């Protein structure tokens, strides 16, 4: 419903009105020039404006408009009595030109959509990587500072007559923290390596070792 409304109010709405006006002009030309003045020369070139625009905007649906113009041309030719091979060829060209423009437009739009999707995919991966790096930094920078302070505190303790058992325990805790930080760092490297194809194999192996 909303989409239908947009068709008549937004960019799509303008297109519909342009095509409607052009359609009326074409029918008018058919009636005035062909039916009244009894000549089939020149005016059908105007039809191509309608056909090309509709094919550009609505792709293969424009074939319905081309079909309508073919019917109108053939009907007036039959009525006027000037139906020849040239009339049939002209009518056929309406369909052929519309189909060609519609196919090219369709391909162009599909390629544009694919490019857009690829761009979005790359952006999504990039943001994920940035998020991951900041998370990894959070999980390394601060813990390393805490580790530094714990080690400083242990050094002070050494000056004050150390409790060996306590120091051993504290050292074990710091080693455990460090092991986990190294694990986090390795995980970060792996994520970056998986993301960047241009990193040579030897460096990939080194970073994730």
């Amino acid at each position, binding site marked *: 419903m909303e989409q239908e409304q947009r068709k008549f109010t937004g960019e799509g709405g303008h297109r519909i009105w342009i095509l409607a006006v052009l359609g009326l002009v074409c029918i008018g030309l058919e009636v005035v020039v062909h039916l009244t003045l009894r000549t089939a020369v020149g005016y059908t070139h105007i039809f191509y404006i309608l056909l090309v625009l509709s094919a550009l905007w609505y792709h293969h649906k424009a074939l319905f408009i081309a079909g309508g113009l073919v019917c109108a041309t053939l009907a007036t030719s039959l009525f006027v009595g000037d139906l020849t091979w040239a009339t049939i060829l002209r009518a056929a060209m309406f369909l052929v030109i519309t189909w060609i423009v519609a196919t090219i437009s369709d391909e162009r739009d599909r390629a544009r959509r694919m490019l857009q999707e690829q761009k979005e995919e790359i952006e999504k991966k990039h943001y994920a990587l940035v998020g991951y790096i*900041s*998370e990894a930094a*959070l*999980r390394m*920078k*601060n*813990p390393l*500072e*805490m580790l*530094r*302070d*714990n080690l*400083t*505190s242990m050094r002070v303790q050494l000056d004050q007559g150390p*409790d060996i058992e*306590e120091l051993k*325990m*504290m050292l*074990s*805790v710091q*080693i*455990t*923290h460090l092991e*986990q*930080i190294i694990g*986090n760092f390795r995980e970060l490297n792996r994520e970056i390596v998986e993301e960047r194809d241009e990193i040579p194999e030897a460096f990939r192996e080194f970073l994730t070792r």
Partner: protein
Amino acid sequence: METQFDIGRLGQEKLFLVLSSAERLRQNNIRVIKTLIGRGYRVVVITTNQPSAILKKHYAAEGIGMGKVTFIDAITKYAIGRIPEGENDTKFVNSPSNLTDLGIAITEVLNPASGEKTCLLFDSISTMLIYLPSIHISKFIHFVTSKLRLLDVPGIFLAVEKGIDPLLLTQLTTYVDDVIDMDKPPGLLGPDGKSPGT
């Protein structure tokens, strides 16, 4: 929202995020414990940074009676691979990343119907960041704060001031009633005892 440490507000505002510099984390832990015990609270300390055995020694050196402190230790068993002797009064969790066991231990410790005023002290969120992604920590802290609110128990969550990224800090701030900066000079406080902009 940051205010100078004012434990007197524990009655009205129950959950605090306490920020401290890394080098003063231990001293601030002791300062909080002393104040809480002085106010008659039994304190449940969840430690992920220093083994409970060491914390006990530091508390004892500061004249803090161990009868009022219960420990949930998530680092000792993981770091040294065994439980030290004579630590029967402490609950040990296998690893700081084992949030299920940590949650169970908290539930068990907070539930006894002793009638005592109990307060939980979490030391520290920053160390948890070594072992878990911030999203898991945020969810866990949300779980703990919800439990504390249900049980009507106050809680203090220690964190290193500069070690938490703005997103996690914002999330944690929404779970607690107030944020306390332990290292902020008193001169920065306004006439109402709160820092400007609170």
